């Protein structure tokens, strides 16, 4: 009795391999960089802000604020909003694993936090919400290096603008066209379309002569906050009409641009006066993509002088004062971004733009889980009806569940986002897995002269044949349609490959054990 029992529990190397791979998959899913830490993780810090100066960085974990433990993003925003409800300067102590950071300000810290992710899985935009744009050059076929330049400029633009949770990359399709793919997680920025596709050709002209243009050649830096940038006045010209708010910020010109300014203004006359002082006869006209956005008066004192400091201004409007402020802030940020990053080398066109709200995604994930469990249950039922043996129901279920875990684990390692097409891919892989298991079960169950081992070996011939046909038929999808359906192909390929290499051999051995035990009983 005893030796037999021991034999039953002896696992073959194939089963061991399966268990090891399964454990590795679980580790790659659940052991995150901030494993077991409590708090919220900083997902974004505005550069040049007080928070940034005090050493807060993206990726740090905030565990306490003013001595209060922080468990989730809700705790954090509650404390912050209570503290900064009055427009008074207060002291804020933020504790991270790097130490304590003390901030004095009348404004909330310029950081964005999110809950610590519980897994390494990254859900795609269609599940977690966000925006995705596919961009190509108008009337021009870009080369590989051109698209890479473009990707750099756009990444820089978003960086300057202050959006960090973004991926910009080049993708190509079957016919060799290059596209730029921009994906932003979370909320969609208001002027996403402009940021991505607006060429952003900025020119400052006096008369017909260009003084300076956007980009680092002429503009060495742009003030973004503090004394030298902001909204300085709001008004409502007609009662019951729209509000207007004006912004201004300082930019610093390069030596060359400043000299140009001096030369052009040298010959102008100061013949325009206002109560504030005298100004030159011509204005500094600001053009954005050949459209006049503002005209600035040039004060008499600047005539012929090499000056590197120029103040840029503009305005925003809205039905309410708060709307007007928001609009003006957005316009200022936009203009600052373009002035720093310069114009794009091509005229671009958004050929695909999808935005997905995070709300639908949550509900969706729940239903997908329900569907997966129900589908597994139906598989179990059919297997039970076919074989009438409860013992044979569990191995397929176990193997299927393990296949899902392995696919997710591998996708976490190779950083493949889990999106809808990926879920369809997992389903396809699991379906193929079930099919193969039924082939093997049927071969093993047959009452023939061959040993179980031989019969399962034969079943493997069919499994391998089916594997190669499925695998090759997925290959074209890796490129077709600018790779937007790649998730499907990748997930299915992972699933069926690990299936053939790891889970099916383990399944075969499990079945052998059950059958052998059956035979000896």
């Amino acid at each position: 009795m005893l030796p037999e029992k021991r034999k039953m529990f002896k696992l073959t190397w194939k089963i061991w391999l399966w268990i090891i791979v399964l454990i590795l998959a679980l580790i790659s899913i659940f052991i995150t960089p901030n494993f077991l830490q409590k708090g919220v993780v900083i997902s974004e810090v505005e550069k040049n802000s007080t928070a940034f100066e005090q050493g807060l960085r993206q990726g740090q974990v905030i565990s306490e604020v003013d001595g209060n433990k922080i468990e989730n993003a809700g705790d954090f925003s509650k404390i912050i909003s209570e503290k900064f409800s009055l427009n008074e300067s207060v002291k804020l102590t933020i504790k991270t694993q790097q130490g304590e950071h003390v901030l004095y300000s009348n404004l909330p810290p310029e950081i964005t936090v999110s809950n610590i992710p519980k897994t390494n899985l990254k859900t795609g935009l269609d599940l977690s919400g966000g925006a995705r744009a596919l961009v190509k050059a108008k009337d021009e076929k870009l080369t590989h290096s051109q698209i890479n330049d473009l990707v750099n400029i756009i990444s820089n633009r978003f960086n300057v603008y202050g959006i960090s949770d973004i991926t910009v990359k080049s993708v190509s399709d079957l016919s060799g066209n290059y596209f730029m793919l921009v994906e932003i997680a979370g909320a969609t920025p208001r002027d996403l379309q402009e940021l991505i596709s607006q060429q952003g050709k900025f020119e400052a002209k006096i008369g017909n002569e260009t003084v300076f243009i956007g980009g680092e050649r002429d503009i060495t830096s742009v003030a973004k906050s503090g004394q030298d940038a902001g909204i300085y006045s709001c008004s409502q010209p007609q009662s019951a009409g729209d509000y207007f708010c004006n912004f201004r910020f300082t930019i610093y010109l390069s030596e060359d641009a400043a000299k140009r300014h001096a030369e052009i203004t040298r010959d102008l006359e100061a013949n325009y006066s206002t109560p504030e002082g005298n100004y030159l006869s011509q204005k500094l006209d600001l053009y954005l993509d050949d459209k006049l956005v503002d005209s600035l008066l040039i004060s008499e004192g600047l005539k012929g002088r090499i000056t590197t400091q120029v103040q840029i201004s503009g305005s925003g409007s809205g039905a309410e004062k708060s709307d007007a402020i928001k609009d003006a802030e957005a316009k200022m940020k936009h203009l600052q971004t373009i002035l720093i990053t310069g114009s794009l080398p091509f005229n671009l066109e958004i050929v695909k733009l999808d935005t997905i709200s995070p709300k639908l995604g949550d509900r969706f994930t729940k239903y997908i889980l329900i569907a997966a469990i129900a589908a597994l249950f139906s598989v179990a039922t059919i297997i039970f009806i076919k074989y009438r043996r409860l013992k044979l129901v569990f191995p397929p279920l176990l193997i299927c569940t393990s296949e899902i875990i392995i696919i997710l684990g591998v996708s976490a390692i190779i950083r493949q986002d889990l999106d809808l097409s990926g879920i369809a891919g997992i389903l396809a892989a699991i379906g193929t897995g079930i099919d193969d298991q039924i082939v093997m079960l049927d071969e093993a169950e047959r009452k023939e002269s061959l040993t179980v081992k031989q019969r399962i070996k034969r079943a493997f011939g069919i499994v391998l044949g089916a594997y190669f046909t499925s695998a090759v038929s997925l290959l074209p999808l890796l490129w077709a349609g600018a790779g937007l359906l790649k998730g499907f192909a990748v997930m299915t390929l992972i699933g069926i490959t690990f299936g053939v290499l790891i889970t099916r051999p383990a399944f075969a051995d499990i079945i052998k054990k059950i059958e052998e035990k059956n035979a000896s009983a």
Partner: protein
Amino acid sequence: MDEKTEQRTETSKQKFSERFIKFHDKNYKLLLFIPVILFVFCFAYMFNFYQKNSDFIYRDISLTGGTSVTISEQIDIDDLRKAVSGKLESVDIREISDLVTREQIAVIVETKADKSQTQKVLEDYLGYPLVEGENSNFEFTGSVLGEDFYKQLLIAILIAFCLMAIVVFIQFKTLVPSLAVIGCAFADIFMTLVAVNILGISVSTAGIVAFLMIIGYSVDTDILLTTKALKRDEGSLNRRIFDSFKTGIAMTLTSLFAVLIALIIVGPFSQILSQIFTIMSIGLGFDIFNTWVTNVSVIKWYASRKKKNV
């Protein structure tokens, strides 16, 4: 069940299967007329369809270009349809409801118009702004890109099909059985295509992926049948075919039920998954027919001729 009735059912079962095998042995060539007739019908239908639409399928906006807006608000869709029908090009409006409460969750508006125009028309009707990511989602595809995607996905299916065919040939190394497997995959796709068109489904990029999935699932059972029937020699040919049928039908039915259940649960939520599951269930259904009616006859014919020659 006592022993006697068990024996009786056993013998009646045997009798039935014997009678069935006899019938099949006699008529399997005649059975091939059913798929032939079906095939002729499908060809005629597709010919006619292509003449009328100069395309193989009805494409949705992800393949023609246009805008799809999902608005997560309570809206009377009949009224909305009346209000926007003249202002947006070929507009289609549907609603999504909760599976349990039947409460309206969102409204989906699809049109060939571009994003800004669609947004403006809808905002004019609704009287409030549509903020992306908050109360609405937009999906916009440029018409040139849609056309491009469509062509490339067709090419992808073609390449996939050819690669599959090559692998099958390498595996069986004989013409007729390989052609039977490949032909079955083709028939599955073709008949599903006709069914999808008859149902009037507008196919999206995801739908085309579903056609690709049919290739994989179709080939599974055919390889099983061909391997068992031709590469093995234990038992009679009929016995081997029947064995593979028992295995194969279990494979297809498990897939079919799993897909149908997923369709019922997730379908109302996601057009993408609902379309993949719908097309797959149709394809799996045709696969049962094409494998176990058509292919069995072809294989049987081939095997008996080979036997005669030997």
